[in-house]
């Protein structure tokens, strides 16, 4: 079973547009092992988010399908928790209450009240948010909001954790902090993770495999890169590591050489949801 934990089986998707059918994805095929950390990287608008949304069940593929632990995915569910780019916390609830909403929904009747409270607090501790547990999203920084968003997703005890450019809207320093936190959590929990990113360093640092996608329309998987760096990984030590730099260069080469003609859009990220943000792969993580 471990070899076929999550199968993205030849999925294609078409959208209706005023000019007729628009094929966003074509024949995307990927098998992910249990506990594997996979990054999806590619240019803006190549359909990375679409892949993730299909796995999440928020979008339905036109052809092919997604199979998780032998069951086909056709609607959203907490076993495929999503960390959204712009945190998507309910602004009128505190951090604790945001996680609580998820926990109450997932563990209704399975955990007692005290167990739920302990579980909520445990997850907030995991992301180092215990000290701002009872603050509302408007009272905490962007990085902290994203931490709570991750805590909420982890608290659902997902089979697969889906992250849609989780650190895309954060400044470089906060981002590297959160990446370290995520690695720490990942070391302990060994979740299966699919993460979308446009940051090459982030992809190499965090992933077991990097899936590089070709440009849309009809985007598909271009290359898959195995990141065989030993864990735990340390960003400072890796900065001088030749293998790390080689892998990093591989990803950059893919993005530039094969799609070098495309003008790199460097403007800061606008609102999440669409893939409106630029590919700032050259930005240093710290």
């Amino acid at each position, binding site marked *: 079973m471990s070899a076929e934990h999550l199968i993205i089986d030849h999925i294609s998707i078409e959208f209706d547009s005023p000019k007729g059918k628009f094929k966003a994805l074509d024949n995307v095929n990927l098998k992910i092992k249990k506990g594997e950390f996979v990054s999806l990287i590619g240019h803006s608008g190549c359909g990375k988010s679409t892949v993730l949304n299909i796995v999440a069940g928020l979008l339905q593929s036109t052809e092919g399908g997604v199979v998780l632990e032998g069951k086909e995915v056709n609607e*959203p569910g*907490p076993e495929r928790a*999503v960390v*959204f780019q*712009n945190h998507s916390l309910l602004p009128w609830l505190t951090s604790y209450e945001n996680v609580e*909403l998820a926990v109450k*929904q997932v563990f209704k009747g399975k955990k007692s009240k005290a167990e739920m409270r302990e579980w909520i607090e445990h997850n907030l501790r995991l992301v180092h948010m215990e000290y701002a547990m009872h603050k509302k999203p*408007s009272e905490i920084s962007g990085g902290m909001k994203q931490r709570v968003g991750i805590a909420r997703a982890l608290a659902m005890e997902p089979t697969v954790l889906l992250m849609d450019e989780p650190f895309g809207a954060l400044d470089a320093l906060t981002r590297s902090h959160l990446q370290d936190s995520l690695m720490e959590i990942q070391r302990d929990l060994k979740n299966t993770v699919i993460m979308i990113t446009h940051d090459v360093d982030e992809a190499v640092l965090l992933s077991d495999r990097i899936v590089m996608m070709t440009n849309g329309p009809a985007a598909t998987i271009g290359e898959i890169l195995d990141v065989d760096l030993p864990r735990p990984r340390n960003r400072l030590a890796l900065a001088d590591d030749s293998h790390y730099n080689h892998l990093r260069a591989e990803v950059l080469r893919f993005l530039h050489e094969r799609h070098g003609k495309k003008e790199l859009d460097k403007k800061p990220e606008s609102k999440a*949801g669409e893939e409106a943000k630029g590919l700032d792969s050259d930005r240093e993580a710290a």
Partner: protein
Amino acid sequence: MIARVAQSLENIEWVAPWLRLFKGENPKEQVNAIIRGIGVPILAFVLFLWIWDASASRVETSLGTVPGPVQVWQQAKGLWQEHLAEREKADAFYQRQEERNAKKLAKNPDAEVKWREYHGRPTYIDQIYTSLYTVFAGFILAVVIAVPIGIVCGLSNTMYTAINPLIQIFKPVSPLAWLPIVTMIVSAVYVSDDPLFEKSFVNSAITVTLCCMWPTLVNTIVGVSGLDKDLINVSQVLRLPWFTKVRKVVLPFAVPMIFTGMRLSLGVGWMVLIAAEMLAQNPGLGKFVWDEFQNGSSNSLGRIMVAVFTIGFIGFILDRIMLAIQRSVSWDKTVAVR
């Protein structure tokens, strides 16, 4: 608790400088702020009174000259005196009744005693009370109808398309047009030997409902349909059942907009009520104005002007109350609510 009250008081523009002056923060600046905040409006009001006084005495009507501020003030005092006199009469009546019944019971403990209610003429204060009571009845009914419909229409495009033309058609209709229809329907449907409410009250309240539900309805729809796509995704990932989704996500998100609508609704309702009461003969401020107009004594114009100020002042107070509620329920503190 005290700190919270102080905090909320500081949010009121014209109270804040007094508080800061009291705390001794930069007195000169606070005095300036007070002059700006209170001095200017007072000056403008005095100017208004002067223009009113100067122009009113020039107009001669069949009921004498148009009353100026002084006469209106006297009428206001007169109405208050009448109210007190009427209350005294009522008290005297109840006292007499009590003494009489006590005496009867003392003579014979099994005697059957009668307790009657005092039926005096409603005073001005009673009429204000009736109006407030009526407007709230109509307003609450409007909210109870508008919010659920608004939520359903905000969530479903089909429902919105279905109901939108109806909203657009009925929204601009005047209370004067609704009232005859309401009256006829109420007289036909609301038949009871011992009615809980007066028909005039029911007519006025329903007319208020029909006229004031639209702002709440429209704002609820707008508020709900503005729900963030990401929050919808969250509720989908969590597999929230429809009702939980509405309660935990949709409603809290739309609450600031709903309350904005409710504030507008109450304003409209209060405005409409006076006209409705006039026609329905509900014993409130509207009827007072109508009766004074029909009465045609030399005091009438002055009394009607008292009513105008009362209506305006109460409308203002209602708006402030709704504003305070609106502020307290608004989770988005970055938006200035005014």
